[in-house]
């Protein structure tokens, strides 16, 4: 009886258990990969701002609002004042614009939900990438098609290194007018990003 039990455990139960655990792990790992890296993250924003309308249909340049993207490490989120440049006149009666105007007149900053984030210990620099002609869409996807901004690309270190190692293949879009700039391999040493 005892022998039988041991055999049963070893021959049947254990392999099944290992199989189940491994399958679950592998499936979960891959199934949750995007989620862990934030791919697909589409948080609701305090104001229903449409990039599709502004950047897509109206063809406003990214740098009209994200004006410091080529000057600084950070691509700034515009202040309410920038929105009001147009919206003090345009579409004043729409509910979202009324919301915006309210923020602006009260002097309260709008707390936009952050969509893209590299960890604190990595120092990404927008300016050096944009000034080399690397288009926003290479990392941020086709924002001009998005009603609500969503993270579409992986923001892991592997994603960074893929491009740094092989920009010719991985960089798909170049900012118009900057096609002549030579894009070398990006630095691959640790201190390029970690300090």
């Amino acid at each position, binding site marked *: 009886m005892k022998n039988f039990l041991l055999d049963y455990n070893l021959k049947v139960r254990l392999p099944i258990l290992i199989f189940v655990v491994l399958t679950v792990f592998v499936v*979960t790992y891959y*199934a*949750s990969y995007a*989620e862990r890296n*934030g791919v*697909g*993250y589409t*948080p609701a924003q305090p104001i229903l701002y449409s990039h599709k309308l502004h950047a897509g249909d109206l063809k406003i340049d990214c740098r009209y609002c994200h004006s*410091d993207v*080529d*000057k*600084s*490490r*950070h691509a*700034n*989120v*515009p*202040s*309410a*004042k*920038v929105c009001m440049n147009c919206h003090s006149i345009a579409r004043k009666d729409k509910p979202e614009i009324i919301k915006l105007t309210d*923020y*602006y007149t009260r*002097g*309260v*900053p*709008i*707390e*936009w*939900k*952050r*969509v*893209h*984030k590299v*960890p*604190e*210990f990595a*120092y990404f*620099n927008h*300016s*050096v990438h944009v*000034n*080399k002609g690397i288009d926003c869409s290479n990392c941020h996807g086709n924002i001009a098609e998005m009603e609500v901004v969503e993270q579409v690309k992986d923001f892991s270190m592997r994603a960074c290194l893929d491009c740094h190692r092989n920009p010719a293949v991985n960089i798909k879009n170049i900012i118009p007018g900057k096609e002549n*700039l030579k894009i070398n391999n990006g*630095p691959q*040493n*640790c*201190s*390029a990003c*970690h*300090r």
Partner: protein
Amino acid sequence: MPLRENQEKSIMDKKVTDISGKIIETAAVTDTTVPVNENQEKDSNYWRSFRELYNDPDFIREKKNEFMPGALDRPDENSFSKFSRRKFLALLSASAAVAASGCSNFRDKGEIIPYNKKPESVTIGNPNYYASTCTGCQYACGILIKTLEGRPIKVDGNPDHPVSKGKICAIGQASVMNLYDPERLKNPSERINNAGGNDITWAAADDKIIAQLKNAASSGKEIVIITNTINSPSQKKLLTEDFKRAYPTAKVYSFELFSDANKNSAFEKCYGVKTFPLVQLDKANVILALESDFLGNEGNKVENSRLYSQRRDAFNGEEFNRLYSVEGNASITGMNADYRMILRTDAIEEFVYCLLNEFISKQKVSALSADAGVTGKLQNYNLNGFIEKNNLSKETVAHLIDDLKKNQGSSFVTAGSMLPESTHIAVNLLNEVLGNNKLYIKDVSTVEQIPLSSKSELENLISDMQSGKVGAVIHFDSNPVYNLPGDYGYADALSKVPLVISLTETINESSDKSNFVLPVNSMFESWGDFQTRNNFYSLQQPVIAPLYNTRQKEEILLTWSKGTKDAFNNEIYQKYVMDNWKAGALQGAGSDADFMKKWYAALNDGVVSSKTVSSAGENSPSSFKSEALISNNSKLTQSNETVLILLKSSSLGDGRFANNGWLQELPKPLSRIVWDNYAAISVQTAKALSLKSNDIIKVTTSAGSIEVPVFIQPGTAEGVIAVELGYGRNVCGIVGKDVGVNANKMMSKNSKVTQWMFNDAKIEKTGSTYELVSTQEHFAFDEPLLKDIQYRREIIQEGTYLQYKENPDFLTAHKTKYSEEETEKLKVGSINEQYVHTGTKWGMVIDLNKCTGCNECAAACNVENNIPIVGKDQVKANREMHWIRIDRYYSGTPEVPKTSFQPMLCQHCDFAPCENVCPVKATTHSEDGLNGMAYNRCVGTRYCSNNCPYKVRRFNYFNFRDRFRDSIQKEESFSLMANPEVTVRSRGVMEKCTFCIQRIMEERQMAIQENREIKGSNIKTACQEACNTSAIHFGDQNDKEAEFYKLNNSKLGYTVLEEIKVKPNVTYLAKLRNVLEIEKTEEHH
């Protein structure tokens, strides 16, 4: 089942209590035929049911049992479900897991909160710089404040400032910590009857104070304003005009813990000019420093260091100057001197007279040799006898006399400001005799806005306070209770004053004795103007809105002088300064629009040169009045007792910044001691009194006594003890409270010599000890293994200036020259990957000729790189976190040491030994020659630190921010101070100098933006920017066009521990001592 039975029994044996807590049951369960309980009858007021009330026997029986009949029967197992609990739980969790895996939820990434209306000048992520003025001491250096998103995070010198020229001292560097100090006062408070303070509103405080001030003024009682040096024209106008107009009995007293008062009064006696003139130190070929630490803690150190080091540059074509130092205390100036003679401080005056006698009477170098009065005065001083008596080196004195004589008109003698007026008079004559008055600057002079109060003025003030003639005392950001010599009896007199108001940033000894404590803005939140010299003005501007409910101290007085609390508004003092500038610094600006243009230009530059030089005649010295010397009664004569000298602290200044941990943890240049002051004594004195370092001694002078730990400082004169002031604050924040010993109480207004010097001290051994902690071990001088190791291992390579001039290759001449073939053979195979740095390769050059060992670099590095304060106990365990340290090496004998300084930081070796041993590849090399450190990868094995030949790696044994002094560094305000471009390291990771990678990356960003090559000359590391003597250079080693290339390949260059072939990228330029003899140490080369 016997066990179960027992259990039941024990349960039932338990005493049972009813609601009222009374024991109603003690009997055993088995006894079922219990009679009616007698207590039951008495307690019949309380019943739970009628059965109980009527004492139903069934009920009583039941009550004996805890459980109802049948309750303890075993259940029928067959009636259970076949589905076990374990299975149920397993299924439950499995289904929960399945359900959870189907869910999709993202990690919240927080918010991005942009400005509502972004100021035009702000670019998020790029710093803004504002020109301002530092108020850390009386010298008011020009500063540039770096702000990121509105937060000041770094202070450096303003290059446009004519005095400081882009450099500031450690106090200025660390001043951002004062702004963010969580212990700053946050609200005005009123103390009633010596009880603790109650927070009140500004309006209430203003109302109460104005009423009391008006009262005092109308009843003719004096209103006293006590300040430190006033160097602001607007402050002066406010205090002496506007405030005085409102309160006619107001009077301003100013004092300074350390001042040039003796120097100035001596100069007035000699030349009839009130202030000692400025000196062209860079024109002096020979400098004689008499107990003067002009490179360390005396005078405007920033300017002095710059001027001195201009003549210590092997490449700018100017001859080296020669620095002689004669001193009792071991100062940095002395340790940097080419010739240092050790002489008791109280013999200095005699030495000057001997020199005068030598030059006037014997060598007749001056017309004064015909003046019988002068020669008569000098005839008793015999240089040879003096040399004999004090055991000075004859050759050195001969060199000195020779040099001074040869360089008449281009040498300079300077005496320490602690020395009495009589010494300074003699020194003035010596400079006059040698024609060195040519070096005095005629057209530019120091401006004293309000002269410091004299001793008699302060004495009168105290007696007025004692006798009740003073109605109110206002401490205008000053701390007289702590800073004034104890024998004035200030604290006692203060208790007689009905109204005491302290305007201060943090609590201090004076605010503790005040009725009103009003918090004031820090220098980052204030407006102001300064004029320290007559050729320029400088401006101070706020770079951040006040963090707390504070007001600028000038605003407060201005409000009071308007007589109503309603006069206050946020711009009141800014307007006041602007109005003053309309009539002063920017007078004749024309229309308002023109004025505003000039005003903004002035704000942008931080300084304006003033065209109106105030009556030149007043400042240019007339001829020397020899009667000043003839009537000069020597105050300083050699005694048989010990000399006590009280020094300005090298890092803390006058103690006002005691709560700044960065300054407390900055090592003293020579002893490398942190977090304490001590009595520096000589080796001989220690031997004579059988004292060891850390023994506590009792020092007694005519002014009193203190107990202070001893530190044996090589190079101190026998019979001299030196103690730093500024320590021992007992009313202070948590960081600085009771750090060190308060030696201020040893100062005396009645000292026979000066406030800072006594020659009647007695030392007693107390028998107890106290542990001093230093960042560098002091090995025994006679330890054969370690003696002169810095020379034997060529860590320090030195030569003499003459040697260098004769043969610039002297440093490498002794090294065996190999042919190329031989070199190839000698190459050691490396286990490293062979990097070929074809592009940029970063490197640093440190010019040891210029380095004075002052530590400014370390202070700047702390601020730039978010270095935590670790506290004394951790420094003791060698866990200080400074990324750059100054190694101080002694050679020679303990009595007469020769000192070498060497800044040591990560050498970014080409074949870095740390990189090989890291098991997780957390420290790696970059193609531009940097040895990088990825904190998030580090697991803290510390192998790298173990394998580093330079010992420059620092490990976070704790989260030091969390550990030190009740986690004060974790306070929210401190987190605003951190440089966002540098990671704040946590426990368990290794860190080290990064060559300020964040600044390299900033230049890289600019280069890419401007589509050009990255240029090394555009990058300044924090230490380089701070170095007062510009000894540190940083650049691209492969950029052949750059100035840096020349320095890096200079014939004086060497790397430390060359023989281990790690190929460091920090090149040191060998120190050249400007001595006449070829030194003995050259044997080692």
